[in-house]
């Protein structure tokens, strides 16, 4: 069973003359342990695809299944629970909560899911240790560098037994070294069985993926398995 399955998904914003088709009958399936990169120009619908897959937005039509569950049939609270337990989200601008330490930020989804603070923070600390941030666990977000913040965000996205990792330009605010490090972390998560969808502009980073999906004007125009190294992708990004 695919971890994520989009069938004929469309998304329309606005009405009448202001109507914008962000996605047009997009179908995509991501199996456990597979990392899919989504590439495309600005405004092509990449982020919309990710937010719909992550249950942050509803599709105008089509079906979205996450771990076999139809999002359309779920209430807001059910979706929230799904996000806590199955979906990890990573944003370009980190989106760590101020006022919470790195460990507390990572542990937050677990605590929100009813796990005791001590256990949750132990799990958060382990996740941070895996990402080499154990010594920064008690630091607040504004005391961390950009790369560290994104790694904390990834730790928060994968903590627990999440099966789907959605990353929207996870390295967009990072230098290339940190960008590679972030992709390496996501790749490692996939090896553990996590399905990942990564939106990126960077062909080199997309080369970390098992499959690259090209999207333009809301439509998937191509899918390919990247050759080792990013150079092979440059000709595809039209």
């Amino acid at each position: 069973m695919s971890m994520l399955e989009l069938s004929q998904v469309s998304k329309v914003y606005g009405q009448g003359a202001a109507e914008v088709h962000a996605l047009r009958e997009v179908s995509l399936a991501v199996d456990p342990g597979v990392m899919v990169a989504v590439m495309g120009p600005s405004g092509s619908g990449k982020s919309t695809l990710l937010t719909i897959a992550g249950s942050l937005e509803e599709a105008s039509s089509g079906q979205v299944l996450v771990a076999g569950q139809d999002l359309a049939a779920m209430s807001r609270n059910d979706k929230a629970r799904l996000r806590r337990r199955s979906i990890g989200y990573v944003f370009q601008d980190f989106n760590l909560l101020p006022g919470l330490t790195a460990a507390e930020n990572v542990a937050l989804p677990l605590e929100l899911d009813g796990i005791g603070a001590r256990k949750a923070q132990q799990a958060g600390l382990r996740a941070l240790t895996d990402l080499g941030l154990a010594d920064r666990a008690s630091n607040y977000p504004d005391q961390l560098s950009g790369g560290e913040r994104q790694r904390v965000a990834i730790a928060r996205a994968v903590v627990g037994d999440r099966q789907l990792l959605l990353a929207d330009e996870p390295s967009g605010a990072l230098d290339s070294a940190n960008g590679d490090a972030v992709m390496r972390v996501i790749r490692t998560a996939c090896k553990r069985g996590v399905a990942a969808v990564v939106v990126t502009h960077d062909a080199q980073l997309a080369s970390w993926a098992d499959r690259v999906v090209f999207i333009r004007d809301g439509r998937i125009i191509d899918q390919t398995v990247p050759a080792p190294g990013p150079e092979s992708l440059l000709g595809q990004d039209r």
Partner: protein
Amino acid sequence: MTTLTRPRAGTGNGGVPARRAVMRWGWRLFRREWRQQLLVFCLLTVAVAATVWGASAVTNAQLADPNYPTLGTAAAGVTLPGTDPDLAADIATISGRYGPADVIENQDIATGTTQPVQLRSESPRGHYTAPLLGLVSGTYPAGPGQAALTSQVAALYDAHVGGTWRAAGTTWRVTGIAQDPSNLADEFALVAPGQVTHPSKVTVLLGSAAAQQALNSGGATLPGVPTGVLFGPNINAGGPSPAVAIILVEVLGLAFVGLVSVASFSVLAQRRLRALGMLSAIGATERGLRLVLIINGLAVGLAGALAGAALGLSAWFAYAPALQQSTGHVIDAANLPWWAFAIAVVLAVVTSVLASRRPAKTMAAVPVVTALSGRPAPPKAVHRSAVPGVVVFALGLAALAYSGGLAAVGGSGDGPGSGGGPRTLHTLLLLGGLVAAIIGIILLAPLAISVLAAGAGPRLPVAIRIALRDLVRYRARSGATLAATTFAVFLAMGICLVASIRFDNPLDWFGPNLSSSQLIFPTGASPAPGEMEQLSNAQLTRLSGQLNTLAVSLHAQFVPLESPAILYQSDTQTHSPQNFTGTVYIATPRLLAAYGIKASQIAPGTDILTMRPGLTGVPRLEMIWTPPTACNDDDPTCGDGSQPGAAGGPPCTLSNDCLASPVIQTVPGLPGGTSAPNTVITEYAVSKYHMRAQLMGWLIQAPAPLTATQLNAARQVALAYQVVVETGSSSPGLRDFADGATALGILIALGVLAMSVGLIRSETARDLRTLTATGASGTTRRTITAATAAALGLLGAIVGMAGAVVAVLAWGHSSLSDMFNDVLLTDVLILLIGLPLAAAAGGWLLAGREPKVIARQPLD
């Protein structure tokens, strides 16, 4: 990578751990962003502090039992004259039959001053004397030759504990300083029981059922003791605590604080929108999102309430000594209405939590993606119905209209609100109507924001246009601010108008009694409070001479005041005459000369001269001059239904010594005080109708305000004749009321605007950054903020004033011209023009700083 065996929560919403996590974050945010919450914190602190201080003050301002000064804890008392030949036997009889009894013997002693001092024998360990006796220092007298003095007596004789004091032919050793805790003005020297040899008065306090029964039977004396005068409590104790009124005022104040808090929390929620979106993205439920802001409200409420309680208590302990001095009884600063404090604190916390609920709900409903973008949801064209506001306001007006107006709140006592049941109903209608009118105006005020859209035309400068359109677009905040501003103006204008109506009643004249340069001496002596005796002719002659001398020393006019008649308005419907308040004196040449009024100014045929505006227009005014000798205190019909014009009385004709519709001329030169000769009868009328005048007193009109020394000299003269000289009281006049209300309204409104305009502008901070990026200068930013504040101030002033006018019209049943007759134009202008101008100036001065950051996120 980390894996975790997840214990599935049963509820699916995370249960306690989730709530704890969200609460922890809410608490941390509160600590990090406390500056943004200072406004709400300060308002709550002030509200609770004022309640704690006020409740403490009103609770302690009155004695636990108002009868303490006369009875102590006894149920009844008997006073026996010192001249009673069987004094000892009578005391023994009373003690035996009605005991247990406490005997207090008083002997007047000459001090060489006008201060009355008594030698008093009283047991400090009596059955009922605990509230009457307290020891400041030293010990109570225990035997012959010992005395404890009050501090005033000790100061008078320069006596001190351990020294001696000579009085009543005896040298006393001073053992201590004593006081009457219920009456600190009571000056006495306490001696041991039985040490007063020649008492001038003996009081026996009783608490037995037999004594109470004798009192309840209505007898003036106790059976078997004909010389003793029986007395009991004369002031009803009990009733609701005055602190209840303070709590009610707090509720009103907190309603106002709540409005501001909603705006403040809304902006706070807006600032945290992305963070809340993030929280939602990682799986927080809507309930969890709401909890973040509600925890914030709870934290602010608790902090404000506790800080307010601490501040209020500190203020109370600092103020208690001053209150003790002004009330004249011992204040126990630790006697505090804790229940009122608890209510105040709970109300403050509840207000804050309730104020945070709506923004919390709104923010929790924002779609996650929208929240994550950090952009507020585009304002929707919400059609808010005016119906609820109109209905509530109309109900308020109806209740006010039927509340009986000024008469029902004690204006004249003859109004429709007189009497027990109706008065309670009218009071309830008045309070209910007022609350409904306020709620209605608060509901309606935000709708007025719409008119700004019409005003924001393309011809306006761009900064003003932006400000006005933003107010319309983001009316959640601007509406709440406008409602609070409107509320402040409504109150201020309402007070001005009610004061105007109250001060404008030419019959029931209201205001300060005298100016500070006037004195009035009556011709009746007042040997004790409530008692009145007419001075003899010889005494009157001597007093008149002394007052003349006093007036000369003060370079003042000395005017005998004679009154020949009374005025009233007959009521053809109820047949109950409405009295004319104040005494109508004769316009003697001396009186007119004292106020620079020449005989040529008086129109021929005028009966009455007055400075009261509107008196000439009062219908059915009648003047009677029944000779005072025909009316004595024993005549139950005197001044009642037998007088002309009254129900059942004869018609008002000259043959009945009554003149209907006397000729009245308004003379502004007469003094305006309620006790001053503001309305006088001409000598022409006195002569024409053969009125008999009676000397009522003397007026001393000084050229300048009298000094404390001059007032003291006047009091010394009055004391010598046991008369009570009337001096200018500190009662506020119309101007004081109107200016005070206007200043209060302006301050509250400006406070609201100062604290919330910044919040409103912060909602559009992104636009401000865009403006800055496109080259807008500080002037543009200042103009936007100034225009925002000015628009809200102007709109609030207009709506608040309109609402107040309509509400007071309904309540007072008066015409617009009557209502605005005495309203000071300056107060209206200050509210209508000054408020927006001051708001604009404040906005201009406080705004203009360039946004520090381009990044907008409160996330990292």
